[in-house]
């Protein structure tokens, strides 16, 4: 190991460290004295340094944005947590009820004319049959049509006055003459 102090020791001395042994060495060693004087020289402050200082004053830099986002996230999450805690989470308060009965409507298309089936009139071979299950709320309950080859079943509830294609499930078929 060299008799010279390390550059780390010399730099620490330059920064004001209380190191009498290194200081004594520097007084007798031209090489270390030169090293010390190089790191202690006064340098003119260039423009990029001032810009660096100004960027911190402006709150610039990627870290400041990171801090802002972190703080905002913490605030939002805390507020959310408070709201969740304030709202009583009681299962009894959840809207519960019996599943509604679906409205089933049967439409008959005969010779180009569509009419609501009244549940009584006989269905003829060649009739087009459209089954519409109108949900109650978001509930839908489709049922098979003419699976057994018999007439379609009657409605359980009154069908809507005007059939809506948006909120209902629809199945359309044409009756096979052999099953009616």
């Amino acid at each position, binding site marked *: *190991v*060299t008799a*010279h*102090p*390390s*550059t*780390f*020791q010399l*730099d*620490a001395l*330059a*920064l*004001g*460290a209380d190191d009498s042994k290194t200081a004594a060495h520097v007084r007798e060693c031209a090489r270390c004295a030169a*090293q010390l004087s*190089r*790191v*202690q*020289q*006064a*340098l003119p*402050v260039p423009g*990029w*340094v*001032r810009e*660096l*200082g100004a960027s*911190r004053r402006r709150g610039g*830099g990627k*870290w400041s944005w990171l801090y802002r986002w972190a703080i905002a996230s913490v605030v939002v999450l805390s507020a959310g947590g408070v709201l969740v805690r304030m709202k009583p989470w009681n299962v009894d308060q959840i809207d519960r009820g019996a599943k509604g009965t679906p409205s089933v409507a049967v439409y008959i298309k005969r010779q180009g004319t569509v009419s609501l089936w009244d549940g009584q009139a006989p269905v003829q071979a060649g009739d087009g049959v459209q089954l519409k299950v109108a949900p109650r709320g978001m509930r839908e309950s489709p049922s098979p049509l003419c699976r057994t080859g018999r007439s379609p079943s009657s409605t359980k509830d009154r069908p809507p006055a005007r059939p809506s294609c948006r909120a209902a499930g629809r199945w359309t078929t044409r009756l096979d003459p052999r099953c009616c």
Partner: protein
Amino acid sequence: MQGRGGRLDDVEATYRRYFALIREKCRRMLGDFAEADDVAQETFARLWRTTLRADDHRSVLAWIYKTGTRLAIDRLRERSRMAGADEEAVALVQLASSSPGGDDALATRRSLEVLARRLPADELEVALLFRLDGLSQGEIAEVARISERTVRRCLQRLDERVAKLRQEILP
């Protein structure tokens, strides 16, 4: 220079206090003054963004040594790609004969530069601090934030690696 929280708070005072030694450290590692000044500037900019305490000069100095060394290693690796086999042979011979922190710092720096691509970053970092800056194992541990035992292992691995390379490259 010290703010309310003790953070480096006056950029010009910080520059006057630390930049000369940062630049000197970078020139020692890289040789090329223009490139060293670039790395020194980058090191200073990073120092300014830290939350190091302004009154803890030793911690700031250790941080400068660590960061400056790591930034310089990136440059050394780039240069190392262009080194030929004959240069590697010379570097291996030189490293085997040089002493840490000795007067042949220029040749040691050049040798580490040539071999930079063949050495792992942690070993190269310890090698630069030990052979070029002449830091003790305790000081390297302080700078790199590792134990002295790890420093010893790292230096041992470095010696083994250099010996193996000598077997491979030298006739």
